[in-house]
């Protein structure tokens, strides 16, 4: 059993007890505990089940590298799965639950997988569930999904606040250990703007646990002094609980702050642009691969030391230490100092000789040289260690009862941030680790290095080296802070313990604890030909869990290299990708949710619409009324009412969202002739023309009415969603191709409100507002005029998208609402009806007018839509002209626009395909057309549709079959797309 010690614990405040539950069992901890330290203090070593075999698992580490200890944390709207217990601070009344077990943590049915483990080797899923194919969706996938998976998904919306912060600095230092503090101090002294980040809640890193002096000052005091000096420097910003998550191109950094403060946003995503980045990210201890190294109670030696020193937690009365280096001796000393027993230090080295070794011996600790662990025994936790010769095959020399095993396989620099943006690594034989290669750093926009490492992140493994390296990294002048150091003895690389272990042992040596990848799995992958480290990783899932292989990587690479009989550098590493540890999705979203998700564009009449029952339709960033629904009416009924009122009397449409672009200048006509398929330059002042725009690929991209405003200026209307895009398109050609043409463009979409006054009574309604002659003689179809209506200066365009007598009235935006209300007053006697976008669509579809985005989809040319009349034959060139002459564009078998009329008056499903005889090479029915627009027409009281059909215009009267998604076939006759008033009598009055 682990327990709380009577004294000690640098980080805990024993005067502030906290109460929490773990799997509904009440427990207590102290302020300053993490979930992990509190659970250990309560004797809870078993904290979860493994992913694949459901083996009992305990806490291995004390930081971000922890693979096992993940919890469901919180309740209700504050519930979060997969919280790493070693980095989550304990809070009062916390509700903590273990994951991946059924029915209980202590008794797990899935543990049967463990006894089947020899039938579940690497690549098991790939090999087994391939066949028969039909079994996958119905049988295999549901079972695998139920038995795998980690935490539960939250069931309620997150109630907390999150935000993004933007910061800029000359030097960003990631890591608040001795190296980070030294580098930040050096950088700040040169006058640079410095930001210093520390991922945990405390400063000083490992140094304050191991003790010692820097510049003659005791380390804890030195850290305090350094921090205070930085805090007082106005050029320095310091942030704890903030992890450097990722380094990106050109010095861009994402940092992740967890505030632990109820008033502040819960998480902050820092978006930092740094001139130079110093990663002082330290090093992580490696586990050793011996049989049953995953039993609860087997921990990293450094973690054992941390729990004793930082949290006053004993891992158990008796801890066996197993190591290949001197550092683990510190753990032995710390345990001894806490009054606990270290029965033996098993040192794989034949002749360990360092000052720490001598100290341990002097304290009376037994040091067994050349020894290793044959196996750890115990049911749900460590009960004893079987000792063997490391050089041998694992014959048990003696069995030592104990409650915990502290292991150390050496230290690996945290190179993630260095590697994110292309920093390369070199293999260090002496320390048996990859470290950053200072000659191949990540480079920035100027081709210069922008990331430097400092301290043990560089591979510096002693205090004096760390200080010198960090001082240099910070650009420090003069001498680096000095520290005494006792030379450590050389370490011995150990990848499998004992080195001659047979297969029975290797199948119990875990490399990746979180994904249950064993030494034998990696060896099998190599044997089956997965020689590339990236392939072996994916085949075995080594390093693919949420801990991203922080503990397993090097051991896995070494095992793979050994199996391939090649040196480790030749195997190389897998790619390090951000973030360093998982960050919350909510922090990435930041404030961008709900109303703040994206800006909302409103027309001047927006509020009026809202007050009159508007059902909104998002169109780009605009909200347009879909229909104005009255009490007791369905949306469909409202649409039908609006269509009928417009056809029979008077409808008003807020058309303000239509794009409006002014094109002006001596070369404007010539330019518009290139932009549009029609001839625009010859349009007389005062006239309007419907124009089509195509891309250089020939495809239709936009349409709209162009009005000539004056000799040198035109007003181009675009679709609602198209204003910015088309303005950009024009600017692109003007700036990058015809920059010598004298043309200016301005997007004035929001400067003008626009109202369509539509229906047989449209003219009378305008006439009542006085001062302007809008008669058929003064304003024929496709003309425009300036004037005054209701005392407001207006531009009236006589154009129609409904087939009715129609005027579009543009007014300065500030007077849009006023004119809208005046038109309502004037039209009252005609039962004026505002109509929304759906009625607009029905009106235009009844007339066979196309809609960009419905009839066009980026693969449609004007010729497909029967719009040859809008393509100038006289012009020598326009955008898309050459492309439209290519063989595929002139193919007579292109699908062409027709009307579709169901035989039983029903409405065709949108997007339905017409089936043809026979099947294609994939065995699917051949198709010969598709529906592009489909509505119920209240005017004709039947379904009407438009569609693109093979040889459509030549097949009038033929009946096509459209299978619906519900299995019902729809039969529709090919007809003209103009369903209503084909002669145009209603519009020409």
């Amino acid at each position, binding site marked *: 059993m682990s327990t709380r010690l009577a004294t000690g614990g640098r980080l805990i405040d024993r005067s502030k007890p906290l109460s929490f539950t773990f799997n509904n069992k009440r427990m207590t901890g102290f302020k300053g505990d993490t979930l992990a330290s509190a659970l250990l203090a309560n004797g809870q070593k078993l904290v979860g089940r493994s992913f694949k075999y459901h083996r009992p698992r305990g806490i291995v580490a004390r930081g971000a590298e922890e693979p096992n200890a993940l919890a469901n944390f919180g309740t209700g709207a504050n519930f979060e799965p997969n919280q790493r217990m070693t980095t989550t601070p304990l809070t009062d009344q916390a509700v903590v639950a273990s994951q991946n077990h059924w029915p209980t943590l202590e008794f797990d049915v899935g543990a049967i997988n463990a006894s089947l483990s020899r039938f579940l080797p690497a690549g098991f899923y790939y090999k087994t569930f391939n066949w028969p194919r039909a079994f996958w969706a119905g049988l295999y996938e549901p079972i695998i999904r139920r038995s795998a998976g980690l935490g539960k998904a939250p069931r309620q919306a997150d109630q907390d606040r999150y935000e993004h912060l933007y910061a800029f600095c000359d030097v960003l230092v990631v890591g608040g250990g001795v190296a980070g503090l030294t580098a930040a101090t050096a950088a700040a002294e040169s006058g640079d703007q410095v930001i210093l980040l520390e991922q945990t809640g405390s400063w000083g890193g490992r140094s304050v646990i191991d003790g010692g002096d820097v510049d003659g000052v005791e380390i804890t005091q030195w850290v305090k002094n350094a921090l205070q000096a930085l805090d007082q420097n106005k050029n320095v910003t310091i942030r704890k609980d903030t992890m450097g998550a990722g380094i990106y191109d050109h010095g861009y950094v994402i940092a992740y702050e967890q505030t632990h403060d109820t008033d502040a946003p819960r998480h902050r995503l820092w978006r930092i642009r740094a001139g130079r980045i110093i990663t002082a990210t330290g090093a992580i201890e490696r586990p050793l691969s011996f049989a049953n190294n995953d039993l609860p109670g087997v921990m990293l030696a450094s973690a054992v030391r941390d729990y004793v020193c930082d949290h006053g937690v004993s891992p158990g009365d008796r801890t066996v230490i197993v190591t290949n280096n001197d550092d683990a001796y510190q753990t032995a000393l710390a345990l001894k100092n806490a009054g606990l027993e270290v029965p033996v230090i098993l040192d794989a080295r034949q002749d360990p000789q360092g000052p720490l070794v001598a100290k341990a011996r002097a304290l009376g600790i037994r040091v067994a040289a050349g020894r290793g662990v044959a196996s750890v025994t115990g049911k749900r936790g460590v009960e004893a260690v079987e000792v063997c010769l490391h050089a041998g095959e694992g014959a048990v020399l003696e069995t030592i009862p104990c409650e915990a095993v502290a292991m150390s396989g050496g230290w690996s620099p945290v190179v993630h941030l260095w590697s994110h943006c292309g920093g390369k690594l070199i293999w260090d034989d002496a320390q048996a680790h990859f470290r950053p290669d200072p000659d191949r750093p990540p480079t920035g926009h*100027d081709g210069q290095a922008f990331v430097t490492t400092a301290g043990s992140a560089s591979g510096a493994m002693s205090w004096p080296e760390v200080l010198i390296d960090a001082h240099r990294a910070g650009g420090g002048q003069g001498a680096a802070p000095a520290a005494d150091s006792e030379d450590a003895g050389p370490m011995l690389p150990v990848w499998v313990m004992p080195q001659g272990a047979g297969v029975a042992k290797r199948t119990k040596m875990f490399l990746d604890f979180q994904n249950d990848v064993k030494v034998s799995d990696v060896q099998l992958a190599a044997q089956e030909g997965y020689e590339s480290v990236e392939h072996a990783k994916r085949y075995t899932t080594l390093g693919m869990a949420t801990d991203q292989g922080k503990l397993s990587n090097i051991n896995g690479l070494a095992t793979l290299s050994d199996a391939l009989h090649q040196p480790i550098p030749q195997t190389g590493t897998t790619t390090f990708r951000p973030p360093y540890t998982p960050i919350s999705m909510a922090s990435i979203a930041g404030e961008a949710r709900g109303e703040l998700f994206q800006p909302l564009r409103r027309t001047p009449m927006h509020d009026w619409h809202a007050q009159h029952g508007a059902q909104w339709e998002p169109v780009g960033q605009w909200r347009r009324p879909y229909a104005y629904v009255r009490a007791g009416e369905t949306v469909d009924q409202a649409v039908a009412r609006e269509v009928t009122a417009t056809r029979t009397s008077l409808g008003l449409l807020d058309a303000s969202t239509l794009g409006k672009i002014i094109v002006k200048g001596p070369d404007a006509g010539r330019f518009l002739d290139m932009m549009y398929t029609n001839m625009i330059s010859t349009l007389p002042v005062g006239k309007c023309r419907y124009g089509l725009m195509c891309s250089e*690929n020939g495809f239709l991209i936009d349409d709209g009415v162009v009005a000539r405003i004056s000799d040198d200026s035109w007003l181009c209307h675009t679709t609602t969603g198209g204003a910015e895009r088309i303005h*950009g398109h024009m600017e*692109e050609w003007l700036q990058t191709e015809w*920059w010598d043409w004298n043309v200016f463009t301005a997007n004035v979409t929001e400067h003008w409100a626009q109202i369509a006054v539509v229906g047989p009574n449209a003219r009378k309604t305008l006439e009542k507002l006085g001062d302007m002659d809008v008669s058929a003689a003064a304003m024929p179809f496709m003309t425009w005029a300036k004037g005054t209506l209701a005392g407001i200066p207006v531009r009236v365009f006589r154009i129609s998208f409904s087939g009715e007598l129609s005027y579009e009235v543009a007014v300065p935006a500030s007077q849009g609402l006023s004119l809208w209300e005046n038109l309502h007053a004037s039209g009252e006697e005609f039962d004026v009806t505002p109509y929304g976008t759906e009625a607009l669509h029905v009106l235009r579809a009844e007339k066979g007018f196309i809609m960009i985005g419905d009839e066009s989809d980026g693969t449609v040319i004007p010729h497909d839509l029967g719009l040859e009349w809008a393509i100038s034959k006289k012009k020598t060139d326009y955008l898309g002209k050459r*492309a439209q002459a290519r063989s595929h564009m002139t193919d007579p078998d292109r699908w062409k626009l027709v009307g579709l009329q169901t035989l039983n008056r029903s409405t065709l499903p949108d997007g339905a395909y017409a089936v043809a005889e026979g099947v294609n090479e994939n065995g699917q029915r051949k198709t010969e057309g598709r529906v592009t627009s489909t509505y119920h027409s209240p005017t004709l009281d039947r379904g009407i549709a438009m569609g693109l059909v093979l040889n459509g215009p030549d097949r009038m009267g033929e009946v096509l079959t459209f299978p619906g998604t519900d299995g019902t076939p729809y039969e529709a006759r090919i007809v003209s797309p103009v369903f209503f008033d084909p002669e145009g009598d209603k519009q020409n009055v």
Partner: protein
Amino acid sequence: MLLITCPNCGVAAEETELHPGGEAHIKRAGAEASEGEFEAYLFRRENPRGVHFERWRHAHGCGKWFHAARCTATLEVFGTYSAQTTEPPAEILEKVRAKRPGWSWRDLQ
């Protein structure tokens, strides 16, 4: 996230302020172009692992198009210049030559 200086307004702009526009210095083939010329204009592009000349628009800034000489492998930016030119300026070519001996792009060396 790239940091590219707009030569028009002088702002060192974040990539999110910019809109990429593909390869620079493409000569338009008009209505009279042959099949081959038109195919080359519309579809044939350089795809170097190294220095590339590309178009960018300072879309959420001054709105102007410009060109950049940028290494697609190291992301080093050798310089930015006006879009209203048919070839890269001599001083940028000099810079590329100095840092990337043996380099070539289309017929530039």
